[in-house]
């Protein structure tokens, strides 16, 4: 099984961990499978997650195997009881997942495109997130939701959202944003095992990327960020796909002699205040990069935390590099201009540093 040992910077302790290079989509599916084996109360629902049924036998055909083939093959192994194809009723099946979670199961909901969270919004906000608190801690809601976010695939305004900040705003809900296969495995496993409702936001641009994944069973603690690169001149804060954008920007900046700390937040709610402040103490400068639109966003939140708790260490204004306050356009060139690019980050870093 072990194809090669770690070449990726997963941090100290991971230098000699057995693992292999895998695509995001493959480790995502493998992790779903592992968690379903691990706990028989874990099951999945969503539209076309097996996809198609034989009219005569009534058996699932696994024609789609889920949006982006996230669940391909699972219905053969676990059957339609645990891979439940649902009608196009996101509100009802998200609500049913809350009901199932309240009564002893651990449902996973595939919401397909992140944009569709809006039709299930009330069940998420009023029931999933609030039940434990408003019922005085009598119960818990151990459910996981995931969906594909982000621009860059020509899906236009209604299939390209990155509005995870709205979910992170909701008390009672947790939100995680993997940025590579390693974090996908660790965060998905941790989310499924967590006793609170967790939303995993999966940028489409990551799905076909590869990266190193340790073979061992591991989880990544919800609420923890990590360094993707260490430097001294400025801190770049990324989340989801913009962590990759930050890494690329850091490479370009290195060529100009500017060394960057690159932080991948990984979790948006709860999130890692400590890593932000720790890095700013060292670099004294920061640029936050977010594909979500800017107003009341996670970029704003990180800026606000730093402007309070990190104020004394700052040498320069806190700059955000985000999408414009606009829906996502269809045309490829406009869409590219919409998304924060490494060049935008480089430009802002130089501005902030007065270079």
């Amino acid at each position: 099984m072990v194809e090669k040992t770690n070449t990726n910077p997963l941090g100290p302790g991971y230098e000699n961990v057995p693992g292999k290079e895998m695509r995001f989509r493959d480790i995502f599916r493998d992790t779903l499978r592992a968690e379903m084996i691990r706990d028989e109360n874990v099951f999945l629902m969503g539209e076309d997650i097996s996809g198609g049924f034989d009219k005569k036998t009534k058996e699932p055909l696994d024609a789609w195997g889920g949006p982006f083939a996230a669940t391909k093959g699972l219905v053969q192994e676990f059957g339609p009881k645990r891979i439940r194809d649902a009608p196009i009723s996101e509100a009802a099946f998200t609500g049913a997942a809350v009901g199932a979670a309240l009564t002893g199961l651990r449902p996973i909901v595939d919401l397909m495109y992140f944009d569709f969270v809006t039709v299930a919004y009330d069940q998420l906000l009023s029931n999933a997130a609030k039940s434990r608190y408003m019922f005085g801690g009598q119960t818990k809601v151990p459910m996981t939701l995931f969906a594909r976010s982000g621009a860059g695939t020509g899906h236009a305004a209604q299939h390209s959202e990155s509005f995870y900040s709205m979910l992170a705003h909701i008390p009672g809900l947790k939100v995680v944003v993997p940025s590579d296969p390693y974090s996908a495995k660790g965060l998905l496993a941790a989310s499924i095992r967590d006793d609170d409702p967790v939303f995993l936001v999966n940028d489409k641009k990551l799905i076909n990327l590869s990266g190193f994944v340790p073979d061992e069973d591991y989880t990544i603690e919800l609420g923890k960020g990590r360094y993707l690169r260490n430097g001294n001149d400025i801190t770049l804060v990324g989340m989801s796909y913009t962590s990759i954008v930050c890494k690329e920007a850091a490479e370009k900046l290195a060529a100009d002699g500017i060394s960057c700390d690159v932080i991948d937040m990984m979790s948006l709610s709860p999130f890692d205040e400590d890593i932000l402040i720790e890095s700013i103490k060292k670099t004294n400068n920061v640029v936050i990069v977010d594909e979500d639109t800017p107003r009341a966003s996670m970029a704003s939140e990180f800026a606000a935390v730093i402007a309070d708790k990190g104020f004394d260490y700052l040498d320069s204004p806190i700059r955000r590099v985000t999408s414009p306050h606009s829906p996502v356009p269809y045309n490829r060139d406009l869409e590219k201009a919409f998304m924060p690019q490494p060049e935008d980050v480089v430009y802002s870093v130089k501005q902030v540093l007065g270079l």
Partner: protein
Amino acid sequence: MTIPKTKLKWIYETMYRIRRFEETMLEQTFKGNAMGVTHPSDGQEAPPTGICAHLTNDDWIGSTHRGHGHCIAKGLDTSAMMAEIMGRSTGQCGGKGGSMHIADFSKGMLGANAIVGASIPLAVGAALTAKYKGDETNSIGVSFFGDGATSQGILHESMNLASVWKLPVIFACENNGYAEATPAWYAVSTEDIASRAEGYGMPGIVVDGMDVFEVYDAAGEAVKRARAGEGPTLIEMKTYRYHGHFHADDTKKYRTDEEEKLFHQKDPIINFEKRVISQKLMTKTELESIKSEIEKEMLVAVEFAMNSPMPDIKDLYKDVYVEYSNSIEGLR
């Protein structure tokens, strides 16, 4: 269906408990002892009672803003309910929920819910758990909702989903003719809500929701169907709320005296009494003794609630998540 004597007593006791709880609760609300808005369900005793008569603690119900009757019929403790309405730490939800959010998971009560229609899929989810876990308990889910809630898309989605997945769930519509001040004849585009069931491949039954015997019979069939794995049923119970939409609502502004009188003549409790006495199923003494027990219970409930402490301010930060984290404390 013939009803066993113990069940018959339970039914009377439950209806009377709901009636007196609501009256007592209203009194307390007007005295300023409830902390928020309350929605009394007196008049509507038959639906929760007739349905929950068939359920055990392993079965689950979802409820509404008008949830006290459902709670009581599902066996919740009236002292803990009263304390909750008074916002006390001894309340069913530690004072965090209030009248519109009473839940008791140990009794299979998924919570009153203040968003119209929002609890419907929760009962579907509970039914999914029941089916998923299979024979362990053979339990079912019941979703209570009003005529007004039928205008919410979530009902439609939930009925279709339950039908597609053939889940053991009962959609229990308490049609009391009004959603706030809006009459059902105005806002609901069909005479009988139950007529919509056919479009979802499930039986739809209309019963007199002022008659607990009718409700009991219809619910018995639906529960049997559900437990036998034959899927969901929609039961529409035509009923009436004696009081306003919420404690301070004046029904005279939108309901006629004639109409109110008509329904009072169908009073579920009085007609139950008449019937069991004339059919010699229960004696007047039995009824009286139940009543006086409940009067005592109400005194105890108020006493308990009034003498209970308020929650600790530190509890503000508790139970947002399973594990406490100081990052929720906000920014001060």
